[in-house]
């Protein structure tokens, strides 16, 4: 039967913080340049790594589906699996009845 209103189905607003970084051992010429520039200023670092961060807000039915969505975004566009690893942090923003 079709439910015109089903209060048990809810959509939640999620926030995802995605960090895309080069895999360990990958050459990172920009980070090397930054490391050298820091050295010029007197800051000697053993290593410098660079990463891109994306902050997204979107609705999903559950935390599991939010995680699936974000993994899809990373694998299909945001990261290049040949050179990148990614980390995802998902937080629930609010609850809204659909």
């Amino acid at each position, binding site marked *: 039967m079709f439910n015109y209103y089903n209060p048990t189905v809810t959509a939640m607003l999620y926030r995802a913080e995605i960090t895309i970084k080069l895999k360990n051992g990958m050459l990172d010429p920009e980070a090397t340049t930054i490391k050298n520039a820091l050295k010029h200023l007197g800051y000697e670092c053993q290593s410098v790594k660079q990463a891109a961060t994306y902050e997204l807000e979107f609705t999903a039915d559950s935390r599991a589906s939010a995680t699936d969505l974000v993994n899809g975004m990373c694998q299909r566009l*945001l990261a290049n699996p040949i*050179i990148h690893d990614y980390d995802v942090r998902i937080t629930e923003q609010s609850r809204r009845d659909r």
Partner: protein
Amino acid sequence: MNIAILRFGGSNCDLDVQKALNNLGVGAELVWYKETLKNYDGAIIPGGFSYGDYLRAGAIAARTKIMQSVAQMAADGKPILGICNGAQILSESHLVPGTFTLNQYPKFICKWVKLRTVGKSPFTDLTNAIVDLPIAHKEGRYVVDPLLLKELYENDQVVFKYVDENGRPTLAANPNGSLDNIAGISNLEKNVLAMMPHPERASEKLLGSTDGDAIFESMVRYIKAL
């Protein structure tokens, strides 16, 4: 014969490629990415800066609908050539193995290089020929899982390498830090070639070299033989 030259927002070598093909008497049509790819004999994705190189060079263009048609053309065995940004788009589309990323010296490089044709390819009728072509890129360093590299050589998928005047792939001859001096890579079936150097910029005597013509001529011969 009719070859499609794809255009995205930011493509800028499209007219050069068309002129190079027309000079050889080959028909070539410019196809805007929102149009549908009709029955073309082959396709060339020219250089430029599609979508401003946002995210990664070629990443956005690779996710456009027209690239699904290009993948279908590739599956049908038609020749697909990606030059510079076109090569980046092909790698981002996973139509060739590996990827092209930021140069080892992380700046834009524009210079003439020497290349040696390595594996057998429909785009290079001569193996072990040395050609002069220009490069112009910031993200041209070829990267692939080193465990795959042996397989790529065994399957003749490495098509071009940066070499010195004696044809040796030396460190000094490698302009961007590409793995094993690789400048051009093809798919397993060989009908898709992604190359960073620009053959269309070496297609007239006035430009300093006509070595690029050999690549377009090889592509045309391959189409005629299909």
